């Protein structure tokens, strides 16, 4: 063969092979044709979600937000890249939240919850039993789309239109898309909330929040890959490594004191335009060592607003707004500003 032509052939073949491989890598995982699934009613789907017990699984959860807020140090759920979730099907779980090159590991072994932070090399032990029943662990609830979506569905049925809108493929699994749309009289910034429910296990796989006027979800929390099946038991045990700082957290005391001082926040309104109104403990704002820059951070994020309810700072994001008044009250909700100020006025 002519060496020139052979050279050309090799160059083209090799480049094509490599480029095809790179192109394959660039295709987002989980994309693909919407699967064909037998139709199911919204009512039945919601019920099966609420009834289903999450099976043993291992998966990766990715969190994606387009809120338009800068990343906030110390708010791990807003900062995190992704988390690996392991569940043994009987209440024990392991969540590894990946944040840059460090990792926060939360292991629930029976009634003990260990939190380990690799950046600071600290382990915190919490007795979950005295505090609240097992599903109420806030960390677990926020990181586990199963619990988050189940809560949402049951809460919102009163004020929303619930429908099943086609199917999707999430983390390689066929799923139903359950859509919650606010009823027309609800005054909210949100357009719809979509929950992708696995067609077999009925486990919510993905939760997306869409706002008016955008096509991309403002907030999305979902599995990027998931495997069902028994998990090795040693995943759900934790022994703090030598040299780590180990503390035993007393969950109740601190939280209860804060809550007592702050006054219990209350919900004004219901459904989509519910507004949470409460009082912020004074020392949070004036600044302990850790929270010293709360006001400073607020100043960067917020705009000044005032009205007959007083004056304060308004933080608006695509999915919600919040007002912190100068006298230490706060109001937040997935609503426009007017609804917040009205809620502040009805004290």
């Amino acid at each position, binding site marked *: 063969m002519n*060496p020139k032509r052979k050279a050309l052939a090799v160059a083209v073949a090799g480049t094509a*092979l490599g480029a095809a491989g790179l192109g394959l890598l660039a295709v987002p995982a989980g994309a693909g044709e919407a699967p064909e699934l037998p139709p199911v009613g919204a009512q039945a789907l919601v019920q099966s979600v609420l009834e289903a017990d999450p099976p043993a699984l291992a998966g990766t959860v990715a969190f994606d937000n387009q809120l338009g807020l800068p990343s906030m140090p110390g708010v791990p759920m807003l900062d995190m890249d992704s988390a690996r979730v392991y569940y043994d099907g009987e209440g024990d779980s392991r969540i590894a939240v990946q944040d840059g090159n460090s990792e926060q590991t939360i292991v629930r072994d029976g009634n003990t919850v260990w939190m380990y932070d*690799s*950046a600071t090399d600290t382990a915190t032990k919490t007795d979950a039993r005295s505090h609240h029943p097992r599903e109420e662990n806030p960390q677990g609830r926020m990181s586990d789309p199963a619990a988050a979506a189940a809560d949402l569905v049951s809460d919102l049925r009163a004020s929303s239109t619930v429908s099943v809108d086609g199917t999707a493929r999430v983390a390689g699994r066929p799923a139903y898309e359950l859509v919650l749309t606010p009823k027309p009289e609800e005054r909210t910034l949100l357009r719809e909330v979509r929950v992708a429910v696995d067609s077999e296990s009925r486990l919510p796989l993905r939760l997306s929040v869409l706002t008016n006027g955008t096509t991309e979800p403002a907030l999305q929390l979902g599995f990027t890959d998931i495997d069902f099946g028994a998990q090795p038991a040693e995943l759900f045990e934790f022994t703090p490594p030598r*040299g780590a700082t180990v503390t035993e957290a007393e969950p109740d005391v601190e939280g209860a004191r804060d809550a007592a001082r702050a006054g219990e926040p209350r919900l004004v309104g219901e459904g989509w335009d519910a507004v949470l109104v409460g009082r912020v403990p004074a020392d949070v704002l004036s600044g302990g060592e850790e929270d010293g820059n709360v006001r400073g951070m607020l100043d960067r994020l917020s705009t000044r607003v005032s009205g007959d309810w007083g004056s304060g700072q308004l933080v608006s994001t695509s999915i919600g707004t919040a007002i912190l008044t100068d006298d230490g009250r706060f109001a937040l909700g997935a609503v426009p500003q007017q609804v917040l100020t009205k809620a502040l006025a009805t004290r």
Partner: protein
Amino acid sequence: MTETLESAPPPSPAADGPSRAPLPRLLRAELRWIFRRPRTLVVLGLLAAIPVIIGVALTLVDSPGPPDGGGDGDGGSLVATAAGNALVLPIAALAMALGLLLPLTAAMVGGDALAGEQAHGTLRGWLLAPVSRGRLLFVKAFGVATFAVCAAGVMALTGIVTGLVINGTDALVSLSGTTLTFPEALLKVAIAAGWVSLQLWAVGAVALAISACTEHPMVVLASVLGGVVVFSVLQFLDALDWLHPFLLNASWQDLADVLRDPMPGGALAEGALRAACYIAIALSLAYARLSTKDG
């Protein structure tokens, strides 16, 4: 380089057909040529010193654990964790050097392999010798790969030795807080070193491709380094996130994944596949250029 000429058999009589030089001998000659150059040894020595320097510096500074919010800089956070952890030190050193230093050395060797030999006039010997061009490229790519393995291996080795000397064998803790046995830790470091070698080989293959097109090793070095810097800058531009999967260094930050337990393999496998794609493209282009080169 004289060895190269000696070991490649003299232009043979017709009885001994073309491309019949025994491959092991060619490879041995190439390795001898690479590893007898003083600059190769100096570079390897410096790479070996990096983990030691990091380890000693971290011990001398003796910060009692990183302060809160120390997780801002990606490489920095790992280095901070390495202070009290024998397992993290070699990985942190590799992750840090993978940013610029290791690609630089791979580009240096890739540049010397073809352009450097051409600049000295010794490539002519190869091109005239009864060694097929494919075989020549194989020998050169093998040399670059061996250097990549040595570079990553020597860093990993001194890293783990330094970590063990400073922190002892019971400080092998993964980022997930699990304490590992020594063989488990060794396996993790070996995986990291192997993965880094593969990435380096990809850089070296690109350097070989450029090297085949020029006779100035400096051009190779400059263009590969320039490429690495440009790629790193592109990584920071969120607007170009569609482009990121095509960039070789897209998963270089994921090296820390080997420190997690259980180890998430997705990003690392993706990075390895990406490196393989770069190698396929670069070596095929290098072959095309080399096989049409006039002796």
